[in-house]
């Protein structure tokens, strides 16, 4: 005799009903849906391939920042060596199998401790001494932390920039060590956002060297640029395919980091679009005041990502922390620059490595097809089960329906995303979920054949099959947990569906099917049965 306690039966019934409610909620009209209590307002989150939108995967160019970092260490070391009068024959960057290293060739062995002291001032350097050769590499741990920090900062800036465009519900996630995935539901053409993310938007203010001349040239033309230490020529576009190379002091006088606001505006004098910026009240305001005092009636340059925006002259001392960035902007460009300045600059350049955009029609088709396929799968399995096991087959169809509802409900509650393979996974769960029932019924048949009375056979068959079901499902569960732990992207999604399907199928078999059979047995205690 199979007996299920009243409490357990009620609990089972309750869980199934709850599953039913949650599974039905997304089917009600939007109006009714909004009126529902908060805890009921769950719907299936559709993956991008089902709802339409764009998916961009970006690679953070950590290498270039790493190189910059190394260069600054090199310069600092060189400066210190000069200051302390340590003589050396060469200091240079050498490519090694795992990246690059700073190599220093000394002239005197007794300088080694002093040099080591200088090098130890820079964080995260691994140093090794070989005779008069000192090699310094950036340590792995430092590099890992460095990469992590840069990627995290980039994510923050990306989020700001995308929020500024007004895109709804973007998903921005770290992927691996140096990748970032951006998902933009409803955005069919991500060109604009890609352009926004393609700019590092580092704004700097520099003085213009007065002794050197600006050089005008055609765009793309090769020009010989004179050189002077501490000065670099950067291009400024003049329109009509002309470029002016402006001699700029390398020293950064002011950066866009201390900005608190940037807005598109129209320049009163020229009638051209410009960007008005506001610096923070303490440091930024002081610095711009200093800069404008120093360069009063002299030329200075505003540089964005290695290009001169404009090189105007300070006509007055700026005391209130406000300034205007002028240049050859269209309205849209000025707007975009203002947005980028508000959102902050990226710590490293980003490269797009993967991009997918899916129109909404394709997603709708897939959902429709998926629904039909799921219904057909259910019907085929139901017919087959009833043909094979009669009334007991019908019982398994009931628990199968509960299984599907609970699967949907838990996917919704977990906020898991339903993807195309996910739909296929659900349809497949339908096929596999009846397995436990098949195991039990086959076992019962065996017991009947071995001459047992029907009722005893059911009880015994159920008990014997339990072990098998537990073992086979636990094996799958162990596998799916490990897949979840170590897998990425689609594999993780698959692991979630598989694990949920397994747990729910265990629940329906041990509680629901068991309860149904227990009730049925009680009612038909003395009848002859055919399984």
């Amino acid at each position, binding site marked *: 005799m199979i007996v299920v306690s009243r409490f357990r039966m009620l609990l089972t019934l309750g869980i199934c009903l709850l599953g039913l409610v949650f599974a039905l909620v997304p089917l009600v009209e939007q109006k009714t849906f909004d009126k529902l209590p908060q805890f009921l307002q769950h719907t299936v989150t559709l993956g991008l391939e089902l709802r339409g939108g764009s998916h961009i995967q970006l690679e953070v160019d950590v290498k270039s920042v790493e190189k910059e970092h190394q260069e600054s260490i090199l310069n600092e070391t060189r400066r210190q060596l000069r200051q302390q009068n340590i003589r050396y024959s060469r200091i240079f960057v050498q490519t090694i199998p795992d990246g690059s290293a700073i190599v220093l060739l000394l002239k005197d062995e007794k300088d080694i401790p002093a040099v080591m002291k200088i090098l130890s001032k820079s964080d995260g350097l691994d140093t090794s001494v070989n005779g008069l050769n000192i090699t310094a590499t950036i340590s792995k741990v430092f590099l890992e932390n460095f990469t992590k920090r840069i990627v995290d900062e980039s994510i923050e800036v990306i989020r700001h920039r995308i929020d500024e465009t007004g895109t709804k519900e973007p998903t921005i996630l770290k992927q691996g060590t140096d990748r970032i995935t951006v998902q933009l539901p409803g955005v069919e053409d991500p060109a604009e956002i890609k352009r926004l993310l393609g700019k590092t938007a580092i704004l700097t203010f520099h003085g213009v060297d007065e002794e050197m001349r600006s050089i005008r040239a055609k765009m793309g033309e090769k020009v010989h640029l004179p050189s002077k230490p501490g000065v670099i020529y950067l291009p400024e576009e003049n329109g009509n395919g002309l470029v002016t190379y402006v001699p700029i002091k390398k020293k950064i006088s002011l950066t866009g980091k201390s900005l608190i606001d940037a807005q598109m505006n129209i320049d009163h004098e020229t009638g051209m679009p410009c960007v008005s910026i506001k610096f923070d009240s303490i440091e930024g305001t002081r610095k711009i005041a200093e800069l404008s005092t120093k360069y009063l009636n002299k030329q200075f340059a505003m540089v964005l990502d290695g290009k001169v925006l404009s090189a105007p002259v300070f006509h007055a001392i700026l005391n209130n922390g406000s300034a205007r960035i002028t240049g050859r902007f269209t309205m849209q460009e000025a707007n975009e620059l203002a947005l980028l300045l508000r959102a902050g600059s990226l710590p490293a350049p980003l490269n*797009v490595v993967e991009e997918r955009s899916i129109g909404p029609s394709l997603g709708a088709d897939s959902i429709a097809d998926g629904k039909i396929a799921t219904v057909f799968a259910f019907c085929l399995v139901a017919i087959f089960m009833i043909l094979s096991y009669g009334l007991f087959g019908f019982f398994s169809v009931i628990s199968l329906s509960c299984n599907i509802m609970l699967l949907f409900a838990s996917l919704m509650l977990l906020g898991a995303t339903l993807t195309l393979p996910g739909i296929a996974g659900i349809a497949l769960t339908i096929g*596999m979920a009846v397995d436990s029932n098949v*195991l039990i019924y086959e076992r019962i*048949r065996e017991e009947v054949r071995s001459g047992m009375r029907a009722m005893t056979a059911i009880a015994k068959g159920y008990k014997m099959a339990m072990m098998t079901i537990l073992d*086979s499902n636990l094996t799958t569960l*162990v596998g799916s947990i490990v897949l979840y732990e170590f897998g990425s992207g689609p594999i993780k999604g698959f692991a979630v569906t598989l694990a949920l399907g397994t747990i729910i199928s265990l629940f329906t078999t041990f509680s629901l099917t068991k309860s149904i059979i227990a009730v049925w047995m009680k009612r038909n205690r003395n009848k002859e049965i055919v399984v």
Partner: protein
Amino acid sequence: MFRLHLIPYGSKFDITGKSRFILTLAVIMVIVCFSFVIFKGLNYGIDFKGGYIFEVRMPSVPNITDLRARLNECELGEVAIQEFGAKKDLMIKLEKSKEGSDQSIAIKKVRDILGEGVVYKRIETVGPKVGEELVSNAIKAVAFALIAMLLYIAVRFEWQFGVCAIAALFHDCALIFGMFSIFPMEFSETSITAILLTASYSINDTVVIFDRIRENLKRYKKMALNELVNLSLNETLSRTALTATTTLLAVLALYLFGGKVIASFALPIMVGIIVGTFSSIFVASPLLVFLNIKRKDDDELKNSDHGVPANLG
């Protein structure tokens, strides 16, 4: 009352008797499939190789030959165009030819060639590096999952069971990879999921049979191992066939009604279920006979029967 019986009651197929032959066959199949994968390779989709996919609905029925010629002129990479459902619907694939070519420019070029009035259902561009990472991650995750399941089975059963189950899984994976290579089906991100599904089905199937073997080992202490495995296989055969049928029915529904994308995913799963069922019956279990499971009263048996297998039945 009518009942459908796929396997007649009391089947007595001699499965372990032919195990040497079948196992040899399985090994040959695995070797053949592996050589195909190694020498012919897989038909990687752009998920792995990098490139572009456009799924479009043209305003009118297009001239594909002409379109292909014009796309080839752009030198974006190898072009493949196929009808996708209706005649107006096209799937255009461009394999990325050179590293670092600008994606937006390539997409713009294709848009220009296709002209006005085209509905873009899907545009994908993938860099090859992403694919490499995908594969290495997948392999790592699957390897760990296999080890975990091996351990679980070894703890719950005996280590031999674990080894046999993993051998069967290995066989399944080899055959599916082989199928992807022999009938050059595109190997994409979803194919990995299909293989994982197959693997989880197969391990499930194998464990059910193992469970019966374990039970019979306790019940028939003196039965010869091959006899016992054969008996267990026959006892569970009906269930194996039934579950395979229900699962196949569900996947068949996916294949027939799920639309093109799901169908391409359902096909390898169908093959996988057949292969997985085959391996549970013909690979995992017969292999156990060769691995000599330690039975609790082995020593007793040796004493009473002088090392000769116990009397049969």
